[in-house]
């Protein structure tokens, strides 16, 4: 039986203006299941309700209706809170503290003892590449360094669920690679990572599952491999255009576009790809190019969001 790190049931959040004249539905009937030990991508265009969902999961924002559980327990359970690490999207630390002092403060707040902190603080600073700056004040840090420190704060107490809200937005390519490696390292240790990021190529590289949100609703959710392989697309180029070939293609695939000697066709699954090639040849087509194309996460994202409009 799969155990879930996060389970939401019909979660809904409606923001009302002060005099209740205007209402904004930020999250609508959200059903989410995040398997424990997975890296879960939480995607959606701006204003889709991702950050509101995260804030509800952390107990910062109260749901209007619905319910959710973290590791099977409500967020009011202090034991569950101890198992969560969080990097907010927009945040500022108490910047007059040094990196070391800040981590000690957050560690103590999580209930860590001095002995563990003395070992753990240099360890995580090393992990995020800030060991040399341990005694520097946070206000001297660049935005990227502050984000690294934010990640250190989130993993300091070795939590089982790490929620990262845009963890690489201020990082350079090297920093992004470090975060990617860190996420994979956390996964290898059985941790659950809940990742909200607009950098879909990165999400694709590290996530096992994704959910795509639009206007507060989950439009698509599932195993990334399965989601991307549902309808493989093949780009074909013939020596000469042929209506007979296109007719044959239509029998086994959906013709997406056709322009002279070139066309793209979508097949139901990967096993149909050789069948398509055979049909084209049997119909007299002379293949110049036959390139199966795996849909990227970006393609899927754009398609899902467009479909939901």
């Amino acid at each position, binding site marked *: 039986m799969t155990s879930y790190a996060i389970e939401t049931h019909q979660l809904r959040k409606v923001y009302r203006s002060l005099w209740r004249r205007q209402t904004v539905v930020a999250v609508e009937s959200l059903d989410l299941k995040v398997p424990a030990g997975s890296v879960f991508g939480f995607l959606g265009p701006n204003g889709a309700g991702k950050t509101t969902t995260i*804030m509800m999961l*952390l*107990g*910062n*924002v*109260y749901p209007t209706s619905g319910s959710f559980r973290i590791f099977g327990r409500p967020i009011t359970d*202090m*034991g569950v*809170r*101890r198992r*969560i690490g*969080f*990097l*907010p999207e*927009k*945040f*500022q*630390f*108490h910047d*007059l*503290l040094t990196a070391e002092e800040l981590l000690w*403060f*957050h560690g*103590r*707040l*999580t*209930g860590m003892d001095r002995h563990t902190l003395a070992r753990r603080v240099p360890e995580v600073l090393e992990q995020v590449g800030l060991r040399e700056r341990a005694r520097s004040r946070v206000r001297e840090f660049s935005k990227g360094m502050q984000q690294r420190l*934010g990640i250190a*704060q989130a993993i300091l107490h070795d939590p089982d669920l790490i929620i990262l809200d845009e963890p690489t937005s201020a990082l350079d390519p090297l920093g992004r690679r470090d975060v990617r490696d860190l996420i994979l390292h956390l996964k290898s240790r059985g941790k659950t990572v809940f990742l909200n990021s607009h950098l879909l190529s990165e999400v694709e590289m590290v996530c096992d599952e994704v959910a795509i949100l639009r206007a507060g609703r989950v439009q698509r959710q599932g195993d990334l491999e399965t989601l991307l392989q549902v309808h493989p697309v093949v780009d074909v180029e013939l020596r000469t255009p042929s209506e007979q070939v296109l007719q044959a293609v239509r029998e086994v695939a959906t013709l997406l576009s056709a322009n002279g000697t070139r066309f793209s066709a979508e097949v139901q699954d990967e096993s149909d790809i050789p069948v398509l090639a055979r049909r084209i040849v049997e119909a007299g087509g002379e293949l110049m190019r036959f390139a199966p194309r795996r849909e990227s996460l970006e393609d899927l994202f754009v398609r899902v969001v467009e479909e939901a409009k």
Partner: protein
Amino acid sequence: MRAILLIASLTLKETLRRRLWVASLLASLAVVGFVFVAKLGASVRANDPIVQSVVPRITLILGLDVVKFFGSVMAMTLASGAIALEIERGMLYAILYKPLHRYQVVLGKWLGVLVFALLNTLFWTVLLYASIRLMMGKTYLETWRAPLVVLLYPVLFGTLTLFFSTFASMGLTVALSIISAGIAWSEKPMREFGMVFDIETLVNVANNVRWIVPMNHLRRWVLEELSVVIPERMMMSQRFQAFESPPAGWEVGYVFGYVLAVLMLAVLVFGRRDV
């Protein structure tokens, strides 16, 4: 309790590193300067025994007013940003998900703000007494209870401002706390004006205002504790008798109950709001 103390010590540390002690130093200079100016004024009539007797006493009474003012402003300044600003800047996001209750955040902030404001108020009070002793040669140790009541000013205004800070933006918090201080301050002139010109409505408004922000109870309590140094002629005047009667025991109790109620309200409001 540990979470409360951690947040209080963080607030205190941040306050110190933000160099608010510079403001404290300037206030100290103002206190010393005030006594010096009074001494200078009295020295003009060095041979008048009445002046030499009254000026140090008036200096103490007015000096404590200066301390009250600085203490209240200090507490209001610190409390206005304590929660509102931290929400606006996203500082609390990395704290609130930790295994702690929201009431611990409010109490930690309250404690941190008040410890700093109270230590400053205490320091200025000691400075005032020491300056009067050094420059005027008078020691008023018999009034030792008055400074303790003065310490309640930052408690009152700091708590009220922290409460505003739990639901309003930083700008609105500052505005609301200034309005509250204005309401509190207006009571005395309103009452005096109403009584002198026999305007009953004004007196009634003043009577109600004192429950909204009970500063006047504290002011009269301080005067009561200072009564041994208040010049006799002033004490005997009808006007003084009418406006400055000592607060009854239940009025003092009201001040403590008020602070407690506002603090509980702050905990309740912050506990129920979206952050």
